[in-house]
C-alpha cells in the first residue's frame, strides 16, 4: 500500500520553516483576500502573539482574517503551495498555548465567522460558525427551553471552533458530556483546500469516526468553518448540596460513595480548605471555613426528580461523615454556593502575584492521595497550592501560587506542576483533562505515551495533513524532543484574561 508515509517517518524531528518567504506569502494572500483581511506589519501582529497562556509569546509572520469559507480555502491553498505553517485561532482564550503563532507562519483567525446560521427547536440543533461564542448558542436557544450543554469557564468569550479544537468540558460534563458528545457535525477545510464534513445531522456517519478524531485535535487536522451542535432541554430546576468534611480523604471517599449509590450529579466539585478560605475573603459565599474540604453536589431535573435525588445525596453524604450539609433553598443561594467555586481563580490571583493552573485527571479513588502528595510538594518546592477539583470526573485544577519576580520561583512552580502531571500519569490518569496539550504540556506527553504511540499520532496527523503545515510543533512532541526532555521544562503560565471566570 502507500509507502510514502513509511519513508517520511513523520515526527522524528521538528520541521524547519525558516525558508518561508514572507513577501511571497503576503503577495499571494493579498490576491485572495479583501483589503483589511491581511495583517503583516509588526504593530498589527502584536495582539496575536499569545493566547490564554501568556508565558509563551511569538509574533506571527502574517495574520489572515477571512470572512467566508471560500476565503479560508484560498488562504489554505496558498499556504499549502508555499509551504507556510498555519495556526488557526478563535478567541485566544485557550490555556495551553494551542494558538501560539509560528514565527514563519500565518495565523488564521476565525474571528469574523460570528453568525449563528440556524437554531431549530424541532430537531434540537443549531448550526453555527466557528467564531460564535459558546454562551451565545445557549442564549439563542433559551427562548425554546433549550441550551448547549458544555460550559467551559471561559464560555462568555471562548468560541465553538476553539471548543471543537480542544474538546472543551466544564462543570457539568459528568452528566452531560464533553464537546465530543454534543457536536454532531463539523465542516472544515483541510490544508490542501478541500472542504470536508465530519459527522452529519443524523446519529452517525458512514466510515471511520473522523468527527471524534477532529474534536480535540488542537487545530492539527483541519480548520473548522461550521459546526452543528446538539441542544438539550433546559432542566426545570437545579439545587445544590454543600457538604463539609473535617478530612480531605473523607471528602474524596464521599465523592466515590455518591457515584457508588448510583447518582450522577449534574455537577460534583471539591475545594480544599486553602481554596475555601481564599474565596470566602473575596466573594463571601458563606462556606464553612473550619472544614478541611467541601463538596458541591448539584441535582437538576423536574422538581419531583430533584427532591428525590437531593434526599439520596444527603443520605450518602451524611453516611460518608459530612460534618455539615446545606441544601440551597432558592436559586440565589444555589448561585452563592457556586460563586465561591467559580471565584477560585481570581481569588488565587489576589493571594499571589502569579499562579499556575494544572489540569491533570486521575481516577477518583486517588484524590485523597493526590492531595497528600501535593501537600508534600508544597514543602519540597517552597510554594503554596490551593486545590479545586471537578471531583465528579477526577479532573484536578491545582493552582500553584508563585511570584515571577522572585528569582527561581517560576522555575520551582514549573517543576511543581510537572511533578503533579507525572503523578497523574502514575495514578493511571492523564496530563490534561480539558485544557489541551498545546505547547504547555508537550514534554509531559513523552511521559504518557511511548515512541510507537507518538509515531502513530504523527501518522494520524499525516492522514489529514501530509505536509505537516497545520499547527506544527503542538500537541504531539517529536521523538527528538522527547529524547531531550528531562531537563527541558517549559515555562509556566499566567492568565491574560483576568475578566474571565476560570474554574
Amino acid at each position, binding site marked *: *500500500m502507500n*509507502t510514502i*508515509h513509511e519513508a517520511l517517518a513523520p515526527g522524528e524531528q521538528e520541521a524547519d520553516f525558516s525558508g518561508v518567504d514572507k513577501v511571497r506569502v503576503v503577495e499571494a494572500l493579498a490576491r485572495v483576500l479583501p483589503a483589511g483581511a491581511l495583517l503583516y506589519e509588526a504593530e498589527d501582529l502584536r495582539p496575536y502573539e499569545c493566547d490564554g497562556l501568556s508565558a509563551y509569546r511569538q509574533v506571527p509572520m502574517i495574520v489572515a482574517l477571512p470572512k467566508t469559507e471560500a476565503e479560508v480555502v484560498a488562504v489554505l491553498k496558498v499556504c499549502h503551495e508555499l509551504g507556510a505553517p498555519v495556526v488557526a485561532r478563535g478567541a485566544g482564550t485557550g490555556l495551553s498555548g494551542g494558538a501560539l503563532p509560528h514565527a514563519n507562519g500565518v495565523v488564521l483567525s476565525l474571528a469574523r465567522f460570528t453568525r449563528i446560521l440556524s437554531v*431549530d*427547536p*424541532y430537531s*434540537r*440543533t443549531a448550526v453555527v460558525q466557528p467564531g460564535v461564542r459558546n454562551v451565545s448558542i445557549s442564549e439563542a436557544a433559551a427562548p425554546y427551553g433549550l441550551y448547549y450543554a458544555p460550559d467551559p469557564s471561559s464560555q462568555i468569550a471562548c468560541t465553538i471552533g476553539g471548543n471543537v479544537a*480542544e*474538546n472543551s*468540558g466544564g462543570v457539568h460534563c459528568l452528566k452531560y458530556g464533553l464537546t*465530543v458528545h454534543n457536536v454532531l457535525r463539523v465542516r472544515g477545510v*483541510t490544508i490542501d483546500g478541500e*472542504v*470536508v*464534513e465530519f459527522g*452529519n445531522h*443524523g*446519529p*452517525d456517519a*458512514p*466510515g*471511520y*469516526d*473522523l468527527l*471524534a*478524531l477532529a474534536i480535540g*485535535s488542537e487545530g492539527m487536522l483541519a480548520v473548522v468553518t461550521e459546526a452543528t451542535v446538539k441542544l438539550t*432541554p433546559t432542566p*426545570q430546576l437545579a439545587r445544590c448540596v454543600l457538604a463539609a468534611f473535617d478530612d480531605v480523604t473523607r471528602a474524596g471517599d464521599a465523592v466515590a460513595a455518591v*457515584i*457508588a449509590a*448510583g447518582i*450522577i450529579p449534574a455537577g460534583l466539585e471539591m475545594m480544599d480548605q486553602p481554596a475555601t478560605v481564599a474565596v470566602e475573603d473575596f466573594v463571601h459565599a458563606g462556606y464553612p471555613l473550619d472544614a478541611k474540604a467541601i463538596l458541591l453536589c448539584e441535582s437538576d*431535573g423536574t422538581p419531583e*426528580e430533584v427532591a*428525590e435525588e437531593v434526599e439520596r445525596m444527603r443520605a450518602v453524604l451524611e453516611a460518608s461523615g459530612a460534618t455539615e450539609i446545606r441544601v440551597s433553598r432558592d436559586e440565589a443561594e444555589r448561585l452563592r454556593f457556586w460563586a465561591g467555586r467559580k471565584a477560585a481563580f481570581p481569588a488565587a490571583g489576589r493571594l499571589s502575584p502569579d499562579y499556575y493552573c494544572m489540569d491533570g*485527571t*486521575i*481516577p477518583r*479513588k486517588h484524590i485523597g492521595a493526590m492531595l497528600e502528595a501535593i501537600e508534600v510538594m508544597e514543602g519540597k518546592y517552597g510554594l503554596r497550592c490551593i486545590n479545586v477539583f471537578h471531583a465528579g*470526573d*477526577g479532573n484536578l485544577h491545582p493552582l500553584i501560587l508563585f511570584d515571577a519576580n522572585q528569582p527561581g520561583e517560576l522555575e520551582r512552580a514549573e517543576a511543581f506542576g510537572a511533578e503533579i502531571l507525572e503523578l497523574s500519569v502514575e495514578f*493511571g*490518569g*492523564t*496530563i*490534561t*483533562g480539558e485544557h*489541551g496539550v498545546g505547547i504547555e504540556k508537550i514534554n509531559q*506527553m513523552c511521559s504518557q*505515551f*511511548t515512541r510507537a504511540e507518538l509515531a*502513530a*499520532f504523527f501518522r*494520524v*496527523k499525516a*492522514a*489529514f495533513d501530509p505536509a505537516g503545515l497545520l499547527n506544527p510543533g503542538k500537541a*504531539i512532541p517529536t521523538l527528538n524532543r522527547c529524547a531531550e526532555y528531562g531537563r527541558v521544562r517549559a515555562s509556566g503560565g499566567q492568565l491574560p484574561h483576568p475578566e474571565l471566570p476560570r474554574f
Partner: protein
Amino acid sequence: MNDQIQEWRERVRRAASSGDALQPRGGGTKSFYGRTLVGDVLDTRAHAGVVGYEPTELVVTVRGGTPLAELEAVIAEKGQMLAFEPPHFGPTATVGGCVAAGLSGPRRLAAGALRDYVLGVKLLDGRGEVLNFGGQVMKNVAGYDVSRLIAGSLGTLGLILEVSLKVLPRPVAEATLSFELDEAQAIRRLNEWGGQPLPLSASAWYAGVLALRLSGAEAAVRSAVQKLGGTRVDDGEAEALWAAVREQTHDFFVGTGQSAGTAESALWRLALPSVAEPLGLAGEQCIEWGGSLRWLRSSASAEQVRARAEALGGHATLYRGGNRDGEVFHALPAPIMAIHRRLKSAFDPAGVFSPGRLYNGF
C-alpha cells in the same frame, strides 16, 4: 507482555511480510455485518477477562475476547450497565467485537452511542505494535482520540486487545407506554417530546404502534407517565419488547438477511436527522432513536434507498442480506475516502487486518 499477545504480534508481522490477511473474530455474531470477510481467522477469545472494575470510577477495563454477556453480568451485580445497550446477536458475542462493530441499541436515543462510552483502547496494529490510546478517566484530551476512531472500524485498523468503557448506574425506575400513531405522527411526537425535559430512554415504532420507554428517578418517570398519556405496557412485556428490538428478534426483523441476494430479505439501516419526513419507499419499517434510525425492508433498489437517505440528510447501510460483495456502506466523498485510505495505511500499512470489510480497496 503475555504469551498470547506475543504470539499474535509475531503472527501479524508474518502476515505483513507475506501479504496475508487476518480477520479478528470473537464469537462471530456480527460476521454478517460489513462486506464479505477475507483472511485467516484470528480468534480473539483466547484473550479474555475483566482487567479492572471499580464501580465508583464508573469505568470497566476488559480484554477484547471477553464475552459481552459476562461483562454485562459483572457490572449488573453492582447495579450498573452499558448505557448504549449494544446488541449481542447471539450468546457468544465478545466485547472486542461489540466495540469493533460500534453498534448501539435502543437506549442510544438518550444515552448516546457506543463511541461516547469508549475511554481507552489497547490495540495491536498492523505493524505488530501494541499501542495504548485514551485511558481510564472520563476527561482526557492528551493526543488524538484514537480510541473512538477504533470504535466501529470493523477490525480494519487492528486487533482490540483491551478496552476501557464508561458504565452508568441502572435507572431506578422504568416504564413503557404505547401509542397508536401513523409514521408521520410518530415522528412529529417524538421530536416534540425530545425538546422537553422528559426522561425518554428508547422508542420503537412499528405497524402503527409507537412504544416509548421512560427511565430515571421514580418521581420523574411517574410524572412523565401522567403527562404523556398513552397505554401503560406491562413491565414484563416491555422488557421482552426492548430485548427483541435490541437483538433484532422482533417480528419485523425475523426473516431478514436469511436468503442473501434477494432484495426483499435485505435489511437496510437508514441513519437520518430525527426530523426527516417519512421515507415514502415501498416496504416495511421499524423506527427507533426518536426518528433518527429507520430500519427498512424494501423491494426498492439500492440506488433508490441510498438516494432517498442522502436527500433526507443521512446515509444508508445494507445491514443484513443483499449483495455483500458490493459496497454495503454509503459512498464517501473523495477527500474523505482519501483520508480513510491514509488512516488505514497509518495503522495497517500492509493491509493485514480485515481488508475490504468496510470499503472495497482497503
